[in-house]
């Protein structure tokens, strides 16, 4: 349907990470401010952890977007799990070094020392729980040599396993946990996202009862909320085409919210 009210809102909630789509939530932006400031310190590692869907990747992407204007920042949003490949790509993209031979840690550290930037380059590693323990060790050694500063994101439970080891703890400058949004924050998130794209009519459809239901279903998780609303607006799109008399524009239908939740697996039925 060409002029559907719901196709744009639906696409807004596609669960992809794009720093241009960043929605400012006060508490997260305070953390971000603090993170951006800390990253300039002479540190080895900063840890950003939290459950999946709490916005770690988004924050990391935003950090990359903001910092790369002024300094050398490298982002690995998809982990390179092979150790030698990882080191090779790192050497190439940071130091511009593209050797034919296999990249070992020793070789990497030699290159780092030879190049020696005035400002230590920053590397952002997303989903670091996918790196092997041995690769994390190498990362630790690189940070020890002050060759690179790392900002690492991890799922919460993994943090407790991998990084909990004592020798990692002492390298970590700061450890910040991202959490699910509060009900208030979730409301702000949804409203801001819709209003930013001029979806005023749809934004007005969300009443307190709807928000309460959405918050209780998604528990404030951004990813689950994105998936739920994508499904919900897909449902609205379908009804708009096939049975438009059912649609009321003063509020969302709890039934359809629940149907969307069944579709995304938030409700088991």
């Amino acid at each position, binding site marked *: 349907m060409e002029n559907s009210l719901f196709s744009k809102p639906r696409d807004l909630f596609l669960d992809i990470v794009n720093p241009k789509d960043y929605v400012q939530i006060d508490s997260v932006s305070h953390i971000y401010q603090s993170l951006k400031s800390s990253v300039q310190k002479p540190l080895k590692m900063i840890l950003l952890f939290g459950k999946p869907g709490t916005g770690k990747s988004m924050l990391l992407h935003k950090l990359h977007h903001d910092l790369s204007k002024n300094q050398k920042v490298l982002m690995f949003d998809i982990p390179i799990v092979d150790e030698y490949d990882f080191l090779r790509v790192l050497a190439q993209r940071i130091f511009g070094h593209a050797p034919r031979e296999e990249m070992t840690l020793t070789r990497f550290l030699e290159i780092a020392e030879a190049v020696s930037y005035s400002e230590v380059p920053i590397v952002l590693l997303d989903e670091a729980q996918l790196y092997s323990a041995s690769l994390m060790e190498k990362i630790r050694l690189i940070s020890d040599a002050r060759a690179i500063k790392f900002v690492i994101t991890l799922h919460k439970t993994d943090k407790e396993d991998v990084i909990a080891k004592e020798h990692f703890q002492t390298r970590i400058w700061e450890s910040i946990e991202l959490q699910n949004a509060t009900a208030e924050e979730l409301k702000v998130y949804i409203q801001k996202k819709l209003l930013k794209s001029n979806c005023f009519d749809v934004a007005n459809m969300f009443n307190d009862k709807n928000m309460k239901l959405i918050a209780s279903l998604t528990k404030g998780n951004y990813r689950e909320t994105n998936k739920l609303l994508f499904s919900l607006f897909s*449902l609205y799109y379908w*009804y708009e085409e096939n049975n438009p008399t059912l649609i009321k524009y003063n509020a969302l239908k709890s039934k359809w919210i629940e149907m969307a939740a069944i579709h995304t697996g938030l409700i088991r039925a």
Partner: protein
Amino acid sequence: MLDIRNLERRWIKYKIKSYAPHIVSAIIVTIMVVLLPFIWSDSKENRSIPETTSLISSTPKATPTAKVLNEESSTVLEPSMDFVQSFQPSTPITQTVATVPQKIEKTSLTEIAPIPTLETVSSKGSGSFALNRNGSKLDIENIERRFKETSNPSLGLFIARYYYDHGNYNEAYNFSLKTNTLNSKMDESWIIFAKSLFKLGKIEQAKKTLQVYISESNSESARSLLESIERGDIK
């Protein structure tokens, strides 16, 4: 792709499933109401430590308690939470009607006064009955300490009686309650308990407590106290 018809079917199933427990519990509650007298006497025997203490003591210990002082300056202001005492007579009331068997923590009721995160200006607990303590001040504190150590219901009863005679109905209530939980068959403890409630203005609760106690124990003294209350003979 969304299969709307399927989703609608699943939604109906979901709704039926989610309403079912409410219907079942409504039926159960109705049955319970009918069987109340029998259940109450049953549960009395299994009663454990009243929730007053657990409610008060489970106040989250959020920030570390500030240690008293700041060596550098004498101008450190500390808040006081003694006013919380005035809320307390109400909380125990709900417990006398129904005990919620949740987390149970043993805490001395005399520790309730400061809610954990704050230091009280005067850390000796409530000052309201300090006036009543003359030479017997040390004795009663001693006995309270012994009661705390030994949990001897006779000591509890003694302390409850002492406070009641000295007009401290709050403490009389507290100690008779503790005594009752240690030994629910001490007639005098129940009498002091009910009388303290009465003196604290909780007349309905006093009557209810007596009614329940009478139904269990057939106590003559409880019966006559209840009658006096109902006649308005007691002030």
